[in-house]
């Protein structure tokens, strides 16, 4: 069946096109500008680069210490994500398959955690970490990252594991398996689809996190990419070419990550807003 083209169709296409262009043009402009020297950016902001000028990237990487920030960001995001997902899965298993009375209360407790934002605990967290000597250390960043990832991930894993039939676990237990074995050999393999969603969603959140690192660290050697880019491109460097290069270094890996995993990311966001 061929649909006739209507005014609604045209308007819909125009609207979609406008939104897409509004997203793409600023990013394209940023990437192109990163290949232009400062003077060219200031004088002719709309012109494409004349040559593929690479110095901005080299200087931003070395002067802006982006290499260190990049490594820190990977360490923080990976470590915290692995532990968040692991703890969320074991909690989700306990809360959905053991059927104890306390499970309901603990689930509620985690749900409340969804409403608590970093800002409402950042002051005590700073005081506590300073007293414990955790401020300015990698561990001091990773621990809060794990904790703040938990409420939503526990919610996701509990909902998913609830859907796995109890019978699978029961027959294994009758055959003499321990609960740890059930968790590792039955629950985790069956939950693989949700695990990848959890992993990607948590990683993205950690990678872009800002205020925790901003507050809990002050040494250049332990800062992450967003905080590093902010101090370099936002304040220290007045060279627009370097600024754009720093922004591109912060963005392009994530755009690639996005293009590979966009369905999983979308699933993570969408499953948060499902009405039970």
């Amino acid at each position, binding site marked *: 069946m061929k649909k006739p083209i209507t005014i609604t*169709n045209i308007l*819909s*296409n125009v*609207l*979609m*096109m406008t*939104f*897409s262009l509004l*997203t793409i*043009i*600023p990013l394209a402009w*940023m990437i192109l*500008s990163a290949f232009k020297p400062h003077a060219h950016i200031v*004088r002719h*902001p*709309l012109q494409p680069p004349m040559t593929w000028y690479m110095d901005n990237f080299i200087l931003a990487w070395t002067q802006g210490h982006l290499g260190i920030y990049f490594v820190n960001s990977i360490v923080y995001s990976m470590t915290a994500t692995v532990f968040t997902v692991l703890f*969320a899965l*074991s*909690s989700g*298993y*306990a*809360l959905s398959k053991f059927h104890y009375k306390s499970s309901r209360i603990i689930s509620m*407790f985690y749900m409340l955690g969804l*409403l*608590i*934002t970093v*800002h*409402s*605990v*950042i*002051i*005590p967290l700073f*005081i506590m970490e300073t007293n414990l000597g955790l401020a300015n250390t990698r561990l001091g960043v990773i621990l809060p990252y*794990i*904790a*703040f990832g938990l409420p939503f991930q526990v919610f996701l894993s509990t909902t998913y594991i609830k859907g796995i039939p109890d019978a699978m676990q029961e027959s294994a237990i009758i055959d003499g398996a*321990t*609960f*740890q074995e059930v968790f590792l050999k039955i629950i985790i393999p069956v939950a693989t689809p949700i695990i990848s969603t959890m992993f990607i969603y948590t990683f993205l959140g950690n990678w*872009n996190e*800002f*205020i925790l690192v901003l507050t809990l660290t002050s040494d250049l050697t332990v800062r992450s*990419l*967003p905080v590093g*880019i*902010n101090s370099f*491109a*936002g304040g220290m460097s007045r060279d627009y070419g370097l600024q*754009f290069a720093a*922004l591109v270094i*912060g963005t392009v890996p*994530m*755009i690639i990550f996005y293009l590979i995993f966009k369905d999983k*990311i979308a*699933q993570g*966001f*969408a*499953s*948060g*807003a499902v009405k039970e």
Partner: protein
Amino acid sequence: MTFSQQKRMSYYLFLAPGLLLFASIIIFPVFYSLSLSFTSFGGYGRPVFIGLENYARIIRDEVFLHSLRNNLLIVAISVFGQIPLGFLLAYLLYRRMVRHGSLYQTMIFLPITISPVVVALLWNQIFSSSGIVVAIVRKLSGQPQYVMKIFENKQWAIFPILCVLLWMHTGTYMVIFYANLQKMVPSLLEAAQIDGASESQMLGHIIFPHMVGTIATAAIFAISGSLKAFDLIYSMTGGGPAHFTEVIAIYMYINTFKYYKYGFGSAASMIIVLLAVGLILILQYITGKLEQRFE
């Protein structure tokens, strides 16, 4: 050890690591923050109890009131801007009103991966005197010396930031709504179409009632997200010039970590929590009424 003891042991073992971290890093600090908010603690020495004085000083502070106003504008742009626009885009995709829907979806959802800091600095460049916006206005208006003055106006300085927030988050809501629209039973719409229902009738009587819950949940996200707006504004303007673009989270941050007023800052952070809970309760009341109407 009996089987039931063994089961209970495993239960606690599975829960322990998560709960331990959650309780010590999130729950305990919330109460810590609440108790600090009644003191004049400044970072060292013993906290001195001063009752509600911090709160009283905050609500009389003109900078706070302007921040509150900015925060409420951000809530408004998310609830009445991002959500309806996101819904409209999702609806167009769902009803297949456009070709290449998945390509559009990929492009519009893209800002979600970009760190707010990068978004902030990029838009600063766009609005700067060598940015796209200014360059285009100069070309169109024929005024080669035009520069953006909007950030110098106390009332209007927040508006460019609202536009950037719209840019960042509309795609997220589109994706959320699109995923939930796809969960609808298609035969319901087909039947309605055969019975001769118009597009607006289907939207009003079938699709919207189905989506009320999702929209309400999205609005909860929007409200709590808007009240904690920090990263983007902190790197775009730092709350300046002269507090024009400040929001409560930045007000809290500056007072705490720049002026070392820990007690005062804690009170400000408690106000963020109270506001979020209050707005969410109002929203749940409205949703309850709406759902009753559709029952």
